[in-house]
């Protein structure tokens, strides 16, 4: 029997459950004020949330590809990439995602797409140049683990309250401080309570979002390493990508920054001193340590 290889990590599970509960509370907070006004407003708020979320589910994958200036590649163009992805699909039982390449020197990769049949795995040209086959495979396995875990969906849902908060703050401050007519300013004043709500929600939501992201990264690292059976290659790839990013010029990193949450390793030039609480990914040292544990388990044959 095999399930033991995918044995649960108790601590991780309980933390994931806790963040999910907090997230549910946050969604409640988002719509409750509208229900306070009237049931109609409340329902309208719920509908608006649903519409915005659906739009994100539907178009986020293409937006991500567009933002990275990536293009989908066929099996004839990139036989090696497709071959690696296909083998990972065979050994994992996952449907095959689309494969894309982004023409960027910085080595990195991301997965996007909320729908299984539209999912896409993207690597940069820099990644292809710097990693060997085993390392490249481990990165692809990590991204496919994200797809298997539906992390794109989770990230979208988790990031949504923060997204709304940001939207409200920018809209209302635009109304208040803009060149607009008096009516616009009045509208801004009327909407001030919403800003108060947003100011309360935004940081909370953002912290939660980041916590969830870090947890999902560790999960994906682990599943990816078990999928390839080569945690050492995963560690090597992580270390390489990280070293490259730290030495890369800031301008190039800025291109990647909007997608930090999606990337294998976030494009952050500095940040060693920044509290771990505000990063999308766990520190590489932590990730490599976890991978070493998987390595030791495989080596001992313990299941």
């Amino acid at each position: 029997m095999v399930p033991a290889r995918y044995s649960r990590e108790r601590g991780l599970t309980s933390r994931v459950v806790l963040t999910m509960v907090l997230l549910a509370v946050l969604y409640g907070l988002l719509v409750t004020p509208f229900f306070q006004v009237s049931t109609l407003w409340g329902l309208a708020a719920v509908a608006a949330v649903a519409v915005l979320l659906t739009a994100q589910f539907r178009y986020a994958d293409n937006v991500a590809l567009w933002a990275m200036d990536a293009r989908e590649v066929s099996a004839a163009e990139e036989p090696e990439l497709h071959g690696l992805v296909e083998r990972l699909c065979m050994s994992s039982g996952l449907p095959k995602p689309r494969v894309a390449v982004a023409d960027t020197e910085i080595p990195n990769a991301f997965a996007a797409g909320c729908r299984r049949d539209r999912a896409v795995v993207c690597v940069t040209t820099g990644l292809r140049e710097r990693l060997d086959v085993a390392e490249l495979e481990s990165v692809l396995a990590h991204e496919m683990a994200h797809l298997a875990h539906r992390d794109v969906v989770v990230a979208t849902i988790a990031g949504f309250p923060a997204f709304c908060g940001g939207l409200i703050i920018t809209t209302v401050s635009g109304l208040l401080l803009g060149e607009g007519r008096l009516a616009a300013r009045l509208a801004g004043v009327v909407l001030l309570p919403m800003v108060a709500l947003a100011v309360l929600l935004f940081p909370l939501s953002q912290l939660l979002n980041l916590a969830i992201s870090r947890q999902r990264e560790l999960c994906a690292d682990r599943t990816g390493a078990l999928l390839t059976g080569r945690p050492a290659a995963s560690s090597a790839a992580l270390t390489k990508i990280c070293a490259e990013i730290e030495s890369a010029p800031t301008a190039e990193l800025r291109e990647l920054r909007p997608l930090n949450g999606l990337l294998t390793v976030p494009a952050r030039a500095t940040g060693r001193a920044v509290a771990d609480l505000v990063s999308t990914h766990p520190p590489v040292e932590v990730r490599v340590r976890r991978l070493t544990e998987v390595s030791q388990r495989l080596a001992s044959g313990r299941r």
Partner: protein
Amino acid sequence: MGFLDTLLGRSKPVKPDLDRLFALSTAALTLEAGTGFIPTGLGSVCFRAVEGGAFARMQKDVQELLDAGDGPEVELSTDSYGYTWLLARQPADDLPALVTDLHAVNATLEAGGFGPHLLCSLVGFQGPDAPGAVGRGHGAETRRLALVYLYKRGTFYPFAPLPGDKRDNALELQVRGAVGADLPFEDDLSRWFPVWGAPGL
């Protein structure tokens, strides 16, 4: 994958059914009757070599298991993606023996807990030798075909390579028509993954 697993970010392995491999013996007869393709007596199992000593021991066990008994030849090879192929050979007219070998390799790896690293098994077939029967511009060369068993899905699909990294899709669909009823066939055509240059093809 269940909702809870999604929520908790874990994946659950499916329970594979290796006994489905035995259906190949019957399917081969139907295949010959329907398309003229006959077994080559070659078959292989693909798995990924995991780092660490435990897997190296397992690999040795498998080889010893197959080398024992009547002494079927087993060849180990590694492909460009780092996957290990174990090629088993039996007389072309003894497909049941070949299927038994493949089943044994799979079962041993599975029992050792390496099920998650099993990829597929395949059995090779060759086309009828009739000259000019092909008419696709590669002359008298014998057509090759493999029936591939996807371990994770428990399903079969055909793979028919043509020279120049092309696939004979027409033949593959024809094979599905011929033996689709005998084998649990893979419905999702996007999962008919190519296995270029696989040993035993």
